[in-house]
């Protein structure tokens, strides 16, 4: 049976390192011959892995975008793939790099030049999830039924994602990382702000210039590891904890097993830190993790990737394929950074019109200004079983509330959880043949997510990347 190949790229700009991966996906109709087609990615092959380079900075606050672009184009050459051939993938800026002044500018600029369909993305929760996917932990959780936490410890942050049966059930991010304290010639060279905050209560805090062998360094590492252990066992309840970045843990089942990924994890599993060319606490952090008593009570599983988990996840794991029976206006694709508004449809069938009207109004209030209307996607979740008449009612409501404002630049974008995209898209087309419409299904999103919809592939499906664009501030 016919297959088709698409190329994907992943770029990870982390606190201390930047890396890239180019891979190819094989798409195939996996449904039986007597069924409506279902296109899935059946094979992922990594074609090229870049070396891990130090993230280039112009100064402490500004990322050197030019150097990163040079690096990327050099890697494309080595991979023998033209940027124009890339049809999906992601560039992700993680850890402390995401807090730099030009972080947003960098990812968006690179996303526009580095590939046909590369998307900009960041956010600590998503980082953790992407790392867990890249490390193979999501797959492990499908196979074992255990509640597994993937802890991706890089230079600046530890991104925890907890999953069971292949579903992410919670996330949490901590200021725990290898580069939070840096050394130079045996003395402390820099201490990151969260660590400074942690020492606020100390009578005699560690300072720049102190010895690298100072007992307080060990104490700080212990503090980080203990905080991590408490987080994993659900004992972290202090919202103001200096090492907590963002929200408290959101999972509600006890963690049974742990997997470590990220640069620091390379020292845990491979027992070989020589590759890590940094003079910082990374190595000692890894050792402390291995020795910590409370952490030993978890089952330790091995990741498929350590330092490259996030980039592998970005390059090979975040692309989804839409349902095969969809209605899309090929002229308006690709669409980037479309915000999603969830329109719950579990209402009385007579109230569809009202529900859609309110959803459109609220989405407008959220995403658009008076002068500047921007496109957004309406996400229909929890649709009841629909009859032909119901579909007509929904389509009429969509047209009534969205058609007048739609154009080629602002098409009507509908994302549906269940398998109804073709019929709803087609009905809208029947009612109004000139309106531009993108109606896709079998994608799970939430209000606050952003989606990118790629160009139509020969099999009629579209690649979709779901992400969150929240840049965490300092």
């Amino acid at each position, binding site marked *: 049976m016919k297959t088709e190949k698409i190329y994907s790229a992943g770029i990870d700009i982390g606190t201390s390192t930047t890396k890239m991966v180019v891979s190819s996906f094989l798409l195939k109709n996996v449904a039986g011959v007597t069924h409506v087609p279902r296109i899935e990615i059946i094979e992922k092959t990594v074609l090229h892995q870049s070396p891990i380079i130090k993230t280039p900075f112009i100064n402490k606050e500004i990322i050197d975008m030019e150097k990163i672009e040079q690096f990327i184009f050099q890697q494309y050459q080595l991979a023998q793939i033209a940027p124009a051939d890339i049809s999906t993938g992601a560039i992700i800026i993680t850890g402390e790099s995401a807090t730099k002044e030009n972080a947003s500018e960098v990812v968006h600029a690179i996303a526009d030049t580095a590939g046909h369909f590369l998307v900009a993305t960041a956010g600590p929760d998503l980082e953790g999830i992407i790392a867990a996917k890249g490390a193979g932990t999501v797959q492990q959780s499908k196979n074992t039924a255990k509640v597994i936490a993937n802890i991706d410890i890089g230079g600046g942050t530890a991104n925890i994602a907890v999953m069971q049966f292949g579903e992410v059930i919670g996330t949490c991010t901590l200021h725990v990382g290898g580069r939070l304290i840096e050394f130079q010639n045996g003395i402390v060279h820099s201490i990151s702000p969260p660590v400074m905050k942690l020492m606020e209560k100390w009578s005699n805090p560690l300072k720049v210039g102190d010895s690298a062998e100072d007992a307080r360094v060990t104490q700080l590492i212990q503090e980080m590891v203990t905080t991590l252990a408490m987080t994993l066992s659900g004992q972290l309840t202090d919202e103001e904890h200096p090492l907590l970045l963002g929200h408290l843990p959101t999972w509600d089942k006890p963690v049974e097993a742990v997997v470590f990924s990220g640069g620091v994890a390379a020292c845990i599993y491979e027992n070989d830190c020589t590759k890590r060319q940094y003079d910082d606490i990374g190595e000692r952090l890894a050792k402390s993790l291995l020795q910590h008593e409370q952490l030993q009570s978890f089952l330790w599983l091995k990741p498929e990737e350590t330092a490259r988990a996030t980039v592998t996840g970005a390059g090979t794991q975040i692309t989804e394929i839409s349902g095969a*029976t969809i209605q899309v206006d090929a002229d308006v694709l690709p669409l980037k950074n479309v915000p999603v508004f969830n329109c719950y449809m579990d209402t009385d069938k007579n109230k569809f019109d009202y529900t859609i009207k309110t959803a459109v109004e609220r989405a407008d209030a959220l995403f658009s200004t008076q002068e500047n209307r921007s496109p957004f996607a309406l996400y229909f979740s929890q649709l009841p*079983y629909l009859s032909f008449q119901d579909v007509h009612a929904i389509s009429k409501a969509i047209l009534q509330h969205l058609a007048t404002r739609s154009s080629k630049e602002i098409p009507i974008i509908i994302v549906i959880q269940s*398998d109804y995209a*073709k*019929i709803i898209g087609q009905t809208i*087309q029947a009612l109004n043949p000139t309106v531009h419409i993108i109606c896709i299904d079998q994608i799970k999103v939430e209000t606050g997510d952003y989606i990118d919809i790629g160009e139509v592939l020969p099999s009629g499906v579209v690649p979709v990347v779901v992400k969150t664009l929240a840049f965490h501030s300092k």
Partner: protein
Amino acid sequence: MNEQLVSMITQLVMEKMGNNASDKSYHDTAVPTENQKETLIKFHNTVANANYADEVVSPSTIEQSNEPLIKLYHSESSNHEQSYYSASNDESTYTSVPITEFKFEEDEVSESVQAAKKHTPARIGVGRAGTRPKTKTWLKFRLDHAAAVDAVYGEVTEELLQKLNVFQVTTKVTDKEEYITRPDLGRRLSDESKALLQSKCQKNPKVQIIISNGLSASAIEENVQDVYLALQQSLSNLKIEIGTTFYIDKGRVALMDEIGELLQAEVIVYLIGERPGLVSAESMSAYICYQPRIGTVEADRMVVSNIHKGGIPPLEAGAYLGTVVQKILHYKASGVGLVAKEG
């Protein structure tokens, strides 16, 4: 298929076994029964079965008939109590314990089984009682089997045909038994029907849609309207013209060959009830063929199967069928021929 119904029937059995059910407990039973009535009659489409269902569920029938609902040990209800007691050594447990409403124990399946259940409609993780399935599993199995049998012997209602605005023709088959034992007769139109088609149908249609109950009338009852309306809309969006749709009672798939010959249709889309199974008795198929004529081989037919609420949603199937028809018209081939031409 219907847990509440299964537990209700079990309750009736249990009460009969105790046989000291007060009127009140009968009354209690009747409450969920009434709520279930609609669903029941849906399952048992034929008149005979509807009566049967009434006998089971209606408390008034039970009381009027004065006969035991279920004859245990083949004894009359009057001496049933006696025989029951004689078989028991401990009278008190059976006389004084008031009858409480029967409930199956809650399923206590592990999270992994629950996760696995999401991926299959098969009866997994149902437990066992000794070497046998549990009562609940067994009754559910019987209920699903009965629904399958009913689907085969059921008929599509006149009301639905009127709603779809289609007329009815027949095959050479005279009754259900013959339909099942003589597939060849289900592949030929009756002589009157041929004449009727000649006079009523548009000739040389681009697309001819036909509908038959086939082996499941419930499949047609449940799905055909949505599929048909969605398909019509899809074809009209694609500007493909449709001939005169009609309904065939007791048709077989290959009947499309004779109809294709008769009306000289370019493409036939044949919506027909599938042989029912234990997962669904309401599954419908759409067979599609380019220029079906007498002698057409099976390799030229295409099918989209498993169209029902729990499978391919009928609306989505109808919308998809339109694009399939478009492709067939474009390549002037279907089935294996289409795959070959598509390259």
